[in-house]
């Protein structure tokens, strides 16, 4: 029997065993603390992601690498900046990798995504880095999607062959650090071992050939289960509202480099849209086919990011004319699927599309250009890289409910909360 000690967690004294892992101690005390790289039986814990950061005696520590000692004063939630710190770690991971949730096999079952939901990440405060990384098809059993790897190290420490040999290791350093694979050892993995590797990977970086992760929407880990259980996502709402009262509020919408899917989602309000037109007036919008602003607008809704010069001009026009701007959908928030080209040089993309494509005629094809068509930008830019955006609604597309709640909040100051099933990146 180990000695009992007393520590304070968010002002409450608790008795715990000396030397027990702080992360577990906090959780046993009924206090919720998020964790990402932590994996119960890897000892000592990895301590790589820093998402479980708490404050101990005034200093930030990763609770998964700290042992409980007598008299510790632990702050988890009492200081709101700690929540923001943990959120920043997750946002960094999103900004660093190329995480295209709508196009990822692991979406819905991805721990990184789940962590984003749990912490209320609707946009990364950090601009996405878009570094070109490879997808490694060389291994026999698995495919390694380096774009999605968050270097948590779980696979390095946990995946062993039947002979006890390691399959993964860390290579390079700095921002080039990546998981390297021993192809020979990888080939000896049993199917069970390979599937295990796929499952312990917190993102979709390890995929097993011939095995599907797919589960129907609504049945996936982060669609249902503990997180979805009537709890709400801790989104930080903007402190901007359309102030004037009485008059009909004016809305404008646009789809930039998007697919109009977000606009379709708005139409999913169904009969609700009839209520909406009673309350608001639409100005410039594909819904009204009004091409130019005719008045000042209370709320501008932007779908899609900026992939060409016209997108930028339109977005700037929206910023000038609209009191509040909301970016909706993954593309508007950080580029989304069109940004898949961001890791490649533009020239390569253009040549592939116009000169070397299957249907282009040898020698006759050109890259289109005319003063009447917009110029393509070197990469797809998130809307907030071009103008200030007041609020972000994630999703591909966001649910009609979510959009509607935000609109009501911004225009009519109505309180709202977002339920987990309504908050998605895909």
């Amino acid at each position: 029997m180990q000695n009992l000690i007393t520590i304070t967690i968010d002002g409450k004294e608790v008795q715990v065993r000396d030397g027990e892992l702080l992360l577990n101690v906090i959780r046993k005390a009924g206090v919720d603390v998020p964790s990402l790289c932590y994996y119960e039986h890897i000892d000592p814990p990895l301590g790589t992601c820093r998402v479980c950061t708490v404050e101990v005696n005034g200093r930030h520590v990763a609770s998964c690498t700290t042992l409980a000692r007598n008299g510790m004063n632990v702050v988890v939630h009492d200081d709101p900046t700690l929540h923001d710190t943990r959120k920043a770690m997750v946002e960094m991971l999103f900004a660093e990798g190329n995480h295209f949730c709508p196009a990822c096999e692991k979406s819905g079952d991805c721990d990184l995504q789940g962590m984003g939901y749990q912490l209320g990440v609707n946009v990364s405060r950090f601009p996405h880095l878009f570094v070109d990384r490879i997808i490694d098809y060389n291994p026999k059993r698995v495919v390694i999607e380096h774009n999605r790897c968050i270097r948590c190290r779980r696979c390095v420490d946990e995946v062993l062959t039947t002979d006890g040999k390691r399959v993964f290791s860390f290579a390079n350093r700095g921002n080039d650090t990546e998981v390297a694979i021993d192809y020979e050892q990888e080939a000896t993995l049993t199917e069970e071992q390979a599937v295990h590797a796929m499952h312990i990977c917190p993102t979709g970086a390890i995929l097993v050939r011939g095995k599907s992760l797919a589960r129907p929407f609504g049945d996936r880990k982060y669609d249902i289960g503990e997180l979805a259980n009537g709890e709400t996502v801790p989104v930080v709402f903007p402190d901007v509202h359309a102030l004037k009262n009485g008059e009909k509020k004016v809305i404008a919408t646009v789809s930039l480099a998007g697919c109009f899917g977000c606009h379709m989602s708005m139409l999913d309000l169904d009969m609700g849209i009839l209520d909406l037109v009673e309350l608001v007036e639409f100005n410039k919008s594909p819904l009204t086919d009004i091409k130019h602003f005719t008045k000042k607008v209370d709320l501008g809704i932007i779908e899609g990011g900026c992939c060409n010069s016209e997108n930028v001009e339109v977005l700037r026009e929206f910023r000038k004319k609209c009191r509040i701007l909301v970016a909706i959908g993954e593309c508007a928030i950080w580029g989304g699927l069109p940004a898949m080209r961001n890791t490649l040089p533009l020239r390569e993309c253009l040549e592939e599309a116009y000169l070397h494509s299957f249907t282009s005629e040898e020698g006759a094809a050109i890259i289109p250009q005319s003063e009447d068509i917009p110029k393509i930008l070197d990469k797809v830019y998130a809307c907030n890289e071009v103008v200030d955006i007041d609020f972000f609604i994630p999703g591909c597309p966001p649910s009609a409910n979510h959009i509607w709640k935000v609109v009501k909040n911004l225009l009519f100051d109505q309180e709202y909360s977002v339920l987990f099933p309504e908050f998605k990146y895909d």
Partner: protein
Amino acid sequence: MKQAFEKETGATLGGTDASGMFGFYETSCIGLSDQEPAALIDFCPVTELTPQKVKTVVAKLKTGSPAISICDEPKNNIRYTPGENTFILKDYEPGAALRNLKELEPVEVINSIKEAGLMGMGGAFFPTGIKWETCRKSVSNRKFVVCNADEGEPGTFKDRVLLNTMPGLVIEGMALGAYSVGASEGIIYLRAEYRWLKEKIEQTLEDFREKGWLGDHIPAKQPFSFDIRVQLGAGAYVCGEETALLNSLEGKRGEPRTRRYFPVERGYLAKPTLVNNVETFATAARILESGAEKMRKLGTKDSPGTKLISISGDCAKPGIYEIEWGMRLGDLLALCEANDPYYVQVSGPSGVAVSMKERNRRLCKEDLLCGGSFMVFDKTRDLLQILHNFSNFFKQESCGICTPCRAGNFILNRKLEKLQLGLGSLRDLVELEDWGATIKQNSRCGLGQMSPNSIVDAIHKFPEYFDQRVDKSGSRLNMGFDMAAAVREYEEAVKE
């Protein structure tokens, strides 16, 4: 210099020439900042390069001369010692420290170190006596003493000079440590960039063995056996962090361990290990030789003794300065003949950015500590360019293990690039500070915790510089978006 090398070797930076004879790469600081421009060729140093010298050197290499036959013997450039108060760099008499062991119990050695008030000279300034005592108290059948000669902080080269001029002193310091804590095995972890010093150190070790100062039955009051070997690093900055160093010694990837145990409890091969910096061991040896009282009389109350400072940059006399703790910054700048300093980076990129308003600050624990690196820049240098260089360094040298250091430094790096292009706004400065604070607070080891220091300091201390470089209109159109640059690639692609 880059052009000269590219022209002469035919290799472009980051690759090899067609024949594969030459490979030409950029590296972080190689500890020769006092005789720059410098390079390592097959790990042999060439210093004070000029295009003409590059031509000669490369021509000789092409004729098949080995690099070792044409490289330079780096100068020591010891520029200043404080007269009779010189403590570290005075004449060295081999064995002078060691012979005291015949009259001293291990605990008495530790007491002297404590009395003298010695702190870790690598830059962490942890009280050395307490470290030695803790290690002594750790119970184990096997203990190690490791000398951290992985001097990687850009702008530092004091350990290079110590190892080059008096390796024996460092070895004696290690022996004192070993005697104190009860260790019988020692390792000098020498950075790969100092491979050219290895032979000299090993020769000194051999001399010591011959004299009976290393090996079995070293003359001492208590039975004492101790030997030392040299192990080379592989060129990673993070391995200067002591737990990463221990991992590297064990042949593992150089990454810091989680802070569950101190190395003095569980270090190399999970045995209690005493890790100290080169200068710390050298000073420890001097304490036994000259006495703790002598050191106490020097320096300031909280930081007794002297310190080796490596000065480089825009001054007439770059090199090594042994100063008494407490010296005014302005006096040191005058000593090294920095004519028109604008900005000084104290303790390297992970240290403190200092403006000339702080001339009267004193280098000591009470005010401004300096781990060794002291880089002077005049007005001809662009501050953002310097900060971006520092940022590149951290971006590359992070071990990549923890999120804030690996991703965060990359993100800061991009932000600095934006400022360099003149596209920054006031908000970018605020974000640099906020994000810098996030990296500092949450990184796993000292590397990440210190990495944003220079950026955050500079923003505070050089407002007149940053004011001119950011948009202060508060426009909600983000001025950081540069349309002309964004369409340039397209325009070029359709031109053909």
